[in-house]
């Protein structure tokens, strides 16, 4: 095999586990397969591996139960936070107007920020921890509604990127899950309680219940439940690959 062929096969095989990559590349070299035959064989194996993953519940929950609905809910909260912060920063909305003060009350604003941060982080963490090998599908399912909303964004006072305030904490959650899926019980419980209280407060404040926001609750409590199960010094990670 040429250097180019090795590189090509190496990239394709990186999508497999390290041991499997080693064995498969060795087999291809031993069999003297051509570059494209090798890429085809590895691609076939990757496709089979991905299809096998979808026989379990975790990728479905991560993609369709979490990434898709949470991205919609978090975009809503992102816009709400952006509008409220704009209102708070604009003196005209505050000076001599008690109604404006109540409208842009600080407490709901803080609750929204906490919900945004905790909800996005917990969502990202759960997606990364329950189905890391189908992460790319979850990312696509998260991006689709984002692209749709970005293309139809019509609020002149705000940048369209205000929809995406949740992306950074969500990525941080995913990165944390990929690095180590262990979270201490206390911080997990505190963030879940805070998230739940904020949501209840906002619901009672607005007088309406937003069902989509409910999608943000369960990842936070899942983090609590999984944190409880993890024992220190254990080699068994609570992950599913």
């Amino acid at each position, binding site marked *: 095999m040429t250097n180019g062929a090795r590189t090509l096969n190496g990239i394709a095989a990186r999508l497999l586990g390290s041991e499997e990559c*080693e064995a498969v590349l060795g087999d291809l*070299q031993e069999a003297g397969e051509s570059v494209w035959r090798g890429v085809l*064989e590895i691609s076939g194996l*990757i496709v*089979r591996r991905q299809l096998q993953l979808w026989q379990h519940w975790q990728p479905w929950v991560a993609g369709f139960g979490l990434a898709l609905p949470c991205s919609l809910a978090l975009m809503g909260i992102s816009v709400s936070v952006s509008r409220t912060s704009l209102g708070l920063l604009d003196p005209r909305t505050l000076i001599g107007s008690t109604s404006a003060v109540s409208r842009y009350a600080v407490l709901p604003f803080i609750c929204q920020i906490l919900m945004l941060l905790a909800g996005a982080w917990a969502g990202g963490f759960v997606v990364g921890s329950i189905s890391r090998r189908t992460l790319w599908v979850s990312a696509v399912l998260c991006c689709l509604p984002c692209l749709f909303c970005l293309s139809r964004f019509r609020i002149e006072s705000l940048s369209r990127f205000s929809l995406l305030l949740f992306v950074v904490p969500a990525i941080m959650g995913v990165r944390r899950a990929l690095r180590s899926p262990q979270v201490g019980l206390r911080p997990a419980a505190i963030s879940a309680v805070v998230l739940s209280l904020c949501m209840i407060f906002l619901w009672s404040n607005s007088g309406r219940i937003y069902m989509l926001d409910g999608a943000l609750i369960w990842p936070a409590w899942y983090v609590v439940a999984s944190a409880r199960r993890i024992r220190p010094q254990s080699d068994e990670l609570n992950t599913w690959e």
Partner: protein
Amino acid sequence: MLGEFEYLLITAAVSLGENAYGAAIREAIEATTKRKCSIGALYTTIDRLETKGLLQTWMGDATPQRGGRSKRMVRITPKGTRAAKDFYDAVMRVSRGASWATNRGEGAL
């Protein structure tokens, strides 16, 4: 009950003995069946059989003709041997009376 390809893989691995690993098993299956055996089919089947406890795998030595890469060695477990024997017995039983099976007795094969 094993599938056809699972039986082929186990039989090839048993016949290769200590030298049973991915590339060798693939070559043996292709030589026997005269059909192409994809790496995807081979390794997903190996994983499935390992999950069922019908075979064991471990990473073996690296050789120069493999570019210094390790082999994934395969060993069939007693449970795997029993499953293969059950499959073989079932095929033999169901084949009784079939024209090709009768011909075999007459030395057609």
